[in-house]
């Protein structure tokens, strides 16, 4: 740790920006990504840079790393440990990376090289910067792995990235970031790609490390819960400029700027979970015998063919979904929640059990009848960038179901498209535009319009808002709710975000490893969970209020301690 040549003075900042502006030259015009930003990060402090997509938060951090593409022109100053890195020659910048400034990336799956062992990747920067060689470097790497909480580091250091879980990989990425004792770590959405329970663990780790190492952390995130959990200070960015800075308490509890206020209001919040155990559920209303079941699953089993062997993704799941209801399916990645949506859409055959749409069992339908059933199902996918054909104008995208099912003539189709565009609050002129001209939220609204083209009985929404910004997410959710009340379709809402499901759904199925661990009304399951897994899931989801989050963190610690008394 004494290898640094120039110790920062106690009053010095680890990272600071002075009037930083970044402009990108693109094919058509110049885009101002960052407009005169000033910000300081002190050693041992976590500053959260929050904002929605296009706010310039990632560009700011990339500028500090000197990794902006060549079409960017940077003005102003960015100091890393007292050295201005703006327009610093590449060779000098390279020397500073890892030793002065390090980065934790969003996607741990791609941040590690799959063909090199963890040992090789961890010792690489140590050897490149001449801090340790050979056995010494390996010993240091083992020490780092121990520090980030990888069990049996001596044995596991010889392994390859695919032998670790996603959370462990992110721990390794963090170990790489701290390997050369940087003055500042930039964590660019470090937990966005992770499940909530893993996210909570990674946040704990980061909190522990910043106290231990006295490093400044610039945390870039869009998740206000993460901010409340980890940050000391918050800087809010909107469209390239800083609109508000302050301590986490100031910004999250008493936001001054209207943008921050709106942003915080848009974050869906889970109502307080009852952990005392004396929750009195509302009396269960008798099931209306006249209700029409739109979707029904009985002992549903779904399997993937993995080169000969079968992998059971969904095992013995049953649920019912009536007209006008929204059923949420929640779970972490790999729980099989999206697989159910796929099966309803006919993209995956049913292995056994019953999956019926309006009483017709999908497994027994002939292809032609199955195609007719498809007309009654609308779908919204997760990624708005990939779910519209880039070569179709918006009008064609929306009317495609009509073309496929041979409904209406051209004039009727155009009329329907304008109607739907109006329903999703987009201008009618969009009809001749192409998907790449629209933002993510607008594209997702086009997807919603497309899903509703044929007045579906059933809407499948597979993580429809997880790729969207908070405020856009709020608008899209509101829209789904509004349209659902207007058209009264049934909706199968698949999501990993418990707060979103809480906001939208009437009933919920909690899934884990292909099994439904708990299901019932949202008000019961999400507010007085009976199953341990649901409790853990709920406890791990951070809330955007620092005080409350501290309480929840403590509650979660107790919950976990009760679960495994040995540890």
């Amino acid at each position, binding site marked *: 740790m004494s290898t640094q040549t120039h110790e920062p003075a106690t009053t010095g900042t680890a990272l600071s920006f002075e009037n930083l502006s970044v402009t990108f030259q693109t*094919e058509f015009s110049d885009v101002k990504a960052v*407009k*005169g930003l000033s910000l300081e990060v002190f050693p041992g402090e976590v500053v959260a840079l929050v904002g*929605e*997509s296009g706010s310039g938060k990632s560009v700011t951090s990339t500028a500090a790393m000197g990794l902006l*593409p*060549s*079409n960017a022109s940077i003005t102003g100053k960015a100091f890393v440990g007292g050295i201005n890195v703006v327009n610093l020659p*590449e060779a000098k910048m390279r020397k500073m990376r890892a030793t002065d400034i390090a980065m934790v990336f969003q996607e741990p799956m791609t941040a590690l090289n799959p063909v090199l062992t963890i040992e090789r990747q961890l010792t690489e920067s140590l050897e490149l910067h001449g801090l340790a060689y050979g056995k010494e470097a390996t010993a240091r790497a083992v020490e780092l792995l121990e520090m980030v909480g990888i069990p049996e580091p001596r044995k596991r250091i010889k392994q390859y990235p695919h032998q670790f879980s996603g959370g462990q990989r992110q721990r390794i990425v963090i170990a790489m970031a701290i390997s050369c004792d940087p003055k500042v770590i930039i964590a660019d959405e470090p937990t966005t790609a992770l499940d909530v329970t893993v996210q909570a663990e990674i946040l704990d780790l980061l909190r522990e490390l910043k106290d231990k190492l006295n490093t400044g952390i610039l945390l870039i995130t869009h998740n206000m819960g993460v901010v409340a959990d980890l940050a000391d*200070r918050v800087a809010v960015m909107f*469209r390239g*400029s*800083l609109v*508000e*800075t*302050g*301590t986490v308490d*100031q910004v999250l509890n008493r936001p*001054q*700027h*209207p*943008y921050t*206020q*709106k942003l915080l209001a848009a974050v869906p919040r889970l109502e307080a979970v009852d952990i005392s155990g004396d929750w009195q559920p509302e009396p269960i209303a008798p099931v209306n015998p006249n209700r029409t079941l739109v979707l029904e699953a009985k002992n549903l089993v779904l399997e993937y063919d993995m080169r000969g062997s079968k992998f059971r993704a969904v095992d013995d799941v049953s649920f019912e979904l009536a007209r006008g209801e929204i059923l949420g399916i929640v779970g972490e990645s790999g729980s099989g929640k999206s697989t159910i949506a796929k099966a309803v*859409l*006919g*993209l995956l055959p049913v292995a056994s059990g019953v999956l019926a749409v309006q009483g017709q069992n999908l497994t027994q339908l002939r292809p032609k009848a199955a*195609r*007719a059933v*498809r*007309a009654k199902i609308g*779908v919204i*996918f*997760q990624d708005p960038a*990939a*779910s519209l*054909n*880039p*070569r179709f*104008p918006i009008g064609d995208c929306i009317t*495609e*179901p009509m073309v*496929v*099912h041979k409904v209406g003539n051209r004039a009727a189709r155009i009329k329907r498209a304008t109607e739907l565009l109006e329903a999703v*609050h*987009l*201008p009618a002129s*969009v009809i*001749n535009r*192409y998907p*790449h*001209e629209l*933002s993510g*939220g*607008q594209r997702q609204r086009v*997807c919603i319009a497309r899903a509703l083209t044929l007045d579906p009985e059933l809407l*499948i929404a597979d993580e429809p808002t997880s790729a969207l*910004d908070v*405020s856009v997410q709020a*608008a899209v959710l509101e829209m789904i709710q509004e349209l659902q009340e207007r058209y009264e379709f049934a909706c199968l809402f698949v999501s990993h975000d418990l707060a979103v499901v809480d906001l939208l759904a009437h009933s919920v199925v909690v899934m884990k490893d292909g099994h439904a661990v708990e299901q019932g009304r949202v008000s019961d399951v999400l507010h007085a969970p009976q199953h341990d897994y649901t409790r853990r899931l709920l406890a791990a989801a951070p809330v955007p209020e620092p005080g409350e989050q501290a309480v929840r963190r403590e509650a979660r610690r107790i919950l976990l301690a009760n679960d495994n008394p040995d540890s």
Partner: protein
Amino acid sequence: MSEHQNNDELRGSSNMQSEMGPDGHPVVSLAEVEDAELAKNESQSRSQGQLIRRRFLNHKPAIISSVVLVFITVMAFSSIGFAGIPGWWDKDYSKAGELINGGAPTLSLLPTWLGGSGLAFGESPFGQDNTGKDYFALVMRGTQKSIIIAVIVGMVATFIGAIIGAVAGYFRGWVDEVLMRITDLFIVIPLLVLAAVLAQMVGNKSGSIFALAFVLGLLTWTGLARLVRGEILSLREREYVAAAQAMGSKTSRVIFKHLLPNTVGVIVVNATFAIAGAILLETSLSYLGFGVQPPETSLGLLISQYQNAFTNRPWLFWWPGMIIVAIALSVNFLGDGLRDAFDPRQTRKAKRRKTKELS
């Protein structure tokens, strides 16, 4: 620390004030800003095709090549006429004439003030062959045939390659296995040998260059099939394909409406390279005597027929050779331009390299 002060400063000088919504309030929601921009955006909507055309037109080598290619094609077809329509050149390629000045080219490009004889075409600008045939007419005739063959080969190969690649990539499983093994079979047999044998067989039967072109097309689709298959394999995982399947689209609609149009970049670029390859393949075959048979002629055949004249009458060798090089090169540059237009990331990389060298 100075957060309070910071906050006040920021609120005072915030650039947010400049962005007002239609009702006079500052716009503070991303969704609203995006919608406002969309509503405001009156500009002509650009489709992907228009963006590509724009980038292509900015690619100088490709534009120069297009001009050269168009010039050669127009010359070849208009000068001696095509399919019974007479051209503006008065000499027949098949009639022997009187040898003038040993058949040397009468074309002169050097102006008089540089010591030349001025800009003049003369009687036979490309010279005459040893029987006194006008070589300009002969070369133009060969160029015509070579271009026809190349275009047909390009179209046939592209069509077969795209279909086989798309079907293999979409269905995967045993369909993919069978189609790709067939592709491998075509690849492992040396192309020139196979083409020579088949062309000979076809040539003996019909003697038409169309049959020859068709056969060559049947042999050269393999590269494109593999590329299209790879592209389709990745595209079929996109959500718009899943959406199309989920709404009940037929397989043919998914392949031809959603998948193939999105591989058009790969297809167009490789079609141009297939054309360039076909010109060279036809030339090689004709040179070896397996391709176009006399009395038909082609550029390769001309080179082969007059290779002995290289020392004493080099023009008989140079003219067809130069035109082959010109066509092949310009088609290749055209392909380069199209590739850069379809995949703008590649051009940007090149730019970055340049700026790094400067700094």
